[in-house]
C-alpha cells in the first residue's frame, strides 16, 4: 500500500483498532515522504528511536516516525548505522520534531545531521555519553548539578531575563521558564523541561505484557485511562486477542469520565488564576463528586488499572449505571450554570479574551494538536477522524473554536464536557452485554500500536516484543510534546503576569514527555 504517491510500500498490520501501516525507508525516502506529508497537511504523531544492535550489527539503531494519514496511522522506520548514527533533521517541515529529535539523541545517541543539537531530557548531571535506552547501558543515578543551558539570548536596551522555576512558590510540577522581558511585556519565552526523568521507557524493557499495562497507566496520572487503553490496544495487536465489545464500551466510558474530570479541574483553576476563587471551589466540588463516584464504581479515583490487555478489570451493574446517569444529569445542570457565570463575568472575560493567542495559521505551522489545537481550529480528534469501536457508533461531535486564546480553550473544555456527558449517557444505555475480557498472551518479535484521544490530545503507544515475548521497546508518546513549543509562541506579546493563566489554559504534562 502506498500513500501520497510516494514509492514506499507500507505493510498493513493486523488486529489494530485503527488501521496501522509500517514501512522501512532510507533517508531520501523519509525526507520525500515528510515533504509530501507536510504538503498534504498531515501531521507528525511521534518520533522515537530504538537500539537494534542485537539484531543487526550494521544498522544497529532505528528511528521511528509516525504520521496521522487520512487512512490511519503510518509508521516509518529508518535504520541508522551502528557507528555514528545520524538521521536527517525533520524540524523544518515539522517544528514539533525538534525536541523529539533531541530526546532521541539523549536516550539512544543518534543525532540529527544538522540543526538544534542541544540536550533536551539530559541535564548537566547526566554524562553526555550515557544513553539510557541502549541495551548495554548499566543502571545509574546521578547527583544534582547546576547547569549552564544555552538559552537563546535577547539583547537590547531595557531587555532583561526573568528565570522562573523549576522550584515554584506553589506545589506544582517542575519546569523552568526563561522569560526575556521588556517591562512587563514578554519578548521571548524559552522552556527547559525534563527535571524528573524517571527512566520509564527503560523500565518497560523485559516486562511481561500484563505488567507493562500497570506501568503504562502510571506514565501520567491525569491520563491514566488514555495510556492504559493505548497500551492495551498495542498489546492486543501483539497477542491477537481482541477485547469483547462490552469491554470496549466500558473503556470509552472510562475515557470520557477521565476527560470530564480533567476539564472540570482545569476550568476551576482557570478561574483561580484570575483570582476568582469561587470558580475554583465550585468546579473542584464537582470534580471531587465525580471522582468519588469513580472510586465507588471502579475502585480508583483516577481509574488506574481499570483497563488491562484483553479487556477491562471492572464491570458496571444496573445500579452503577443509574448512578452515572443521575450524576451526568446533575453535573450537566451545574456546569451550564457555571458556564453562564463565567460567560457573564466581565472581569474574567477581560482576562480570558485575546490572552495567549495562537491563530489557526500558527497552530497549523507548529502542529498544535488535541484540545489546544481544536481551540485554534485544528480539526484533530481521533474519536472523529479515525473512530474505532465504540466511537464509530457514538459519533462524537468535535468541539472547534477559532480564536485560539484562553477563552477559546475554556470554551472547548465546556463543549467537550457537554459532549462527553452526552456520550456517557449514550454508552450506558447502549452498552452491549457479554464478557469483559479475553486472555491476552504475548507473541514473540511482534509490533503493536495503540492510539487513543486522551483529554489533552492523542496518546500513542508503540510496543515491540522480543524473542522471549517480553517487552523489547515500549515508547509512550504524550501530546504535550507537540504543544509545549506552542506555549512559547502563545506568550509572546502578552504580559508576564498572564503567563500562569496561559500555561494553565494549555495544562500540559511535565511528566508525560519525560520518560
Amino acid at each position, binding site marked *: 500500500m502506498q500513500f501520497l504517491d510516494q514509492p514506499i510500500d507500507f505493510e498493513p498490520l493486523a488486529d489494530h483498532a485503527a488501521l496501522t501501516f509500517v514501512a522501512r525507508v532510507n533517508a531520501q525516502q523519509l525526507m520525500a515522504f515528510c515533504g509530501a506529508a507536510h504538503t498534504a497537511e498531515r501531521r507528525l504523531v511521534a518520533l522515537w528511536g530504538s537500539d537494534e544492535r542485537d539484531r543487526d550489527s550494521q544498522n544497529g539503531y532505528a528511528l521511528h516516525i509516525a504520521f496521522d494519514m487520512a487512512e490511519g496511522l503510518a509508521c516509518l522506520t529508518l535504520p541508522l548505522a551502528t557507528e555514528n548514527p545520524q538521521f536527517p533533521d525533520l524540524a523544518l517541515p515539522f517544528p514539533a520534531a525538534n525536541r523529539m529529535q533531541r530526546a532521541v539523541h539523549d536516550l539512544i545517541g543518534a543525532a540529527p545531521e544538522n540543526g538544534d543539537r542541544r540536550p533536551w531530557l539530559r541535564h548537566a548531571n547526566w554524562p553526555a555519553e550515557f544513553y539510557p535506552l541502549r541495551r548495554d547501558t548499566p543502571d545509574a543515578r546521578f547527583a544534582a548539578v547546576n547547569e549552564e543551558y544555552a538559552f537563546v539570548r535577547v539583547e537590547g536596551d531595557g531587555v532583561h531575563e526573568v528565570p522562573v522555576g523549576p522550584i*515554584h*512558590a506553589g506545589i506544582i510540577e517542575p519546569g523552568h521558564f526563561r522569560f526575556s522581558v521588556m517591562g512587563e511585556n514578554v519578548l521571548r519565552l524559552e522552556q527547559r523541561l525534563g527535571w524528573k526523568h524517571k527512566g520509564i521507557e527503560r523500565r518497560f524493557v523485559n516486562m511481561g505484557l500484563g505488567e507493562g499495562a500497570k506501568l503504562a497507566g502510571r506514565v501520567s496520572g491525569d491520563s491514566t485511562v488514555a495510556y492504559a487503553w493505548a497500551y492495551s490496544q498495542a498489546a492486543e495487536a501483539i497477542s491477537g486477542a481482541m477485547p469483547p465489545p462490552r469491554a470496549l464500551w466500558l473503556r470509552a466510558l472510562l475515557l470520557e469520565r477521565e476527560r470530564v474530570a480533567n476539564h472540570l479541574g482545569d476550568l476551576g483553576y482557570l478561574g483561580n*488564576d484570575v483570582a*476568582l*476563587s469561587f470558580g475554583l471551589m465550585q468546579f473542584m466540588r464537582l470534580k471531587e463528586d465525580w471522582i468519588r463516584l469513580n472510586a465507588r464504581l471502579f475502585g480508583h479515583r483516577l481509574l488506574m488499572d481499570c483497563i488491562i490487555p484483553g479487556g477491562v478489570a471492572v464491570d458496571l451493574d444496573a445500579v452503577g449505571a443509574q448512578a452515572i446517569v443521575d450524576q451526568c444529569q446533575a453535573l450537566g445542570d451545574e456546569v451550564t450554570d457555571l458556564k453562564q457565570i463565567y460567560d457573564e463575568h466581565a*472581569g474574567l472575560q477581560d*482576562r480570558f479574551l485575546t490572552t495567549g493567542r495562537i491563530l489557526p495559521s500558527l497552530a497549523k505551522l507548529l502542529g498544535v494538536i488535541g484540545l489546544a489545537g481544536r481551540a485554534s481550529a485544528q480539526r484533530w480528534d481521533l474519536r472523529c477522524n479515525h473512530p474505532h469501536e465504540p466511537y464509530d457508533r457514538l459519533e462524537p461531535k468535535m468541539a472547534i473554536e477559532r480564536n485560539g486564546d484562553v477563552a477559546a480553550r475554556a470554551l472547548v473544555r465546556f463543549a467537550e464536557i457537554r459532549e462527553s456527558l452526552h456520550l456517557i449517557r449514550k454508552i450506558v444505555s447502549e452498552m452491549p452485554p457479554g464478557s469483559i475480557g479475553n486472555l491476552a498472551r504475548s507473541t514473540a518479535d511482534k509490533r503493536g500500536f495503540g492510539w487513543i484521544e486522551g483529554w489533552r490530545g492523542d496518546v500513542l503507544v508503540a510496543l515491540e516484543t522480543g524473542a522471549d515475548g517480553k517487552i523489547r521497546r515500549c515508547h509512550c508518546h504524550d501530546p504535550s510534546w507537540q504543544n509545549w513549543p506552542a506555549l512559547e509562541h502563545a506568550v509572546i506579546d502578552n504580559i508576564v*503576569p498572564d503567563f500562569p493563566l496561559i500555561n494553565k489554559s494549555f495544562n500540559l504534562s511535565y511528566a508525560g514527555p519525560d520518560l
Partner: protein
Amino acid sequence: MNFYALFAQLLALVTALILAPILNGWVNQCRAWMQNRTAPPLLQTYYTVSKLLHKDALLAHNASSLFRVAPYAIFSCLALASAIVPTLSTELIFSPAADAIALVGLFALARVFIALAGMDVGTAFGSLGSRREMLIGFLAEPALLLIFFTTSLISQSTSLSTIVATLAHRDFVIYPSLAFAGVAFTMVSLAENARIPIDNPTTHLELTMVHEAMILEYSGRHLALIEWAASLKLFAYSCLGLALFFPVGITEVADPVSLAMSGVILVMKLAIGGFMMALIETLSAKMRIFRAPEFLGTAFLLAVLAMLVHLLLESGK
C-alpha cells in the same frame, strides 16, 4: 495635653496592634464562607506570626543591612500610622503633630522601604514586585491626598482629629462630595492593601504577585513583622475609611466609658467593613496589571470630582 489623651493614644495603638490581625482573619473567614469553604480560625494571622517568630530568619548571602532593617522600619511606620488614625477618640496627643499629609507620608515611607528591600537581594521576582508596587503607589497616593483635601476643605483643617471631629459631630448635612470621596477611598484601599482586583493576597503564582513578590525572600521574624505590618495597614485604612465616611461613635472626649463605647462600635463597624471587602473580593476577578492605572485613574477622577462638588455645591457662598 492631659492624662486621658495619653491614655487614649496608647489605647489606640494597642487596639490597632491587637485588632489588626483579627480583622485580617475576619476578612479571610468571610471570603472562605462566601466561597463555600471551611474558614481558617479568626486568629490565624496570630498563629502565623507566632509560628514565624519561632523560626530562624534566613538571609540571602548578598542581603545588605537595608534588607534587615526594612521589616522594623515598615512595622514602625505602619504602627505609627494606625496610631494617628482616630479610631476610638479624636483627642490624641499625636494629632497636633501628625496630620493627614503626614499619614500619607508614613504610608509612602513604608512603601519605599518594602520596595527597596524587594530589590535588595537582586532576584527577578523582587524587582518585578517592587516595580509594580511603585506603579500602583504613584497612582494611588495623589488620589488619597485629594480625598484628604476634600475632607480638609469641609473641616478647614488637615488635622485628622479635627476632620473626624467635624464630620462626626456636625449637624446632619448631606455632603455629596463625601460620596464621591468614599468610593475613591475604597478603590485606593483595595489597591494599597494588595487586595483583589489589583493583587491577590492568596496567590502562589509568583509571576502575578505584587506585594508577595517583594517579600518572597523574607523568613522568620522579619516575615512575621511584615505580615503583621500588612494587617496593620489594612486596619489603618479600614479605620480611616470608617472615621471619614462613617464617623458615628468616635468620641471627642477621652474618658473610659466613652472609649469603651466607641471600641464596641468600632468592632461592629470593622466587622461590617471586612464583610463588604470580602464580598468585593469574592465577586471580582483580578485585573491585568495594566488595568491598574485605569482603576486608580478612576479613583483619582472621583476624588477630583469630590473636590469640585464640594467647591461648587457645598462651599456655601
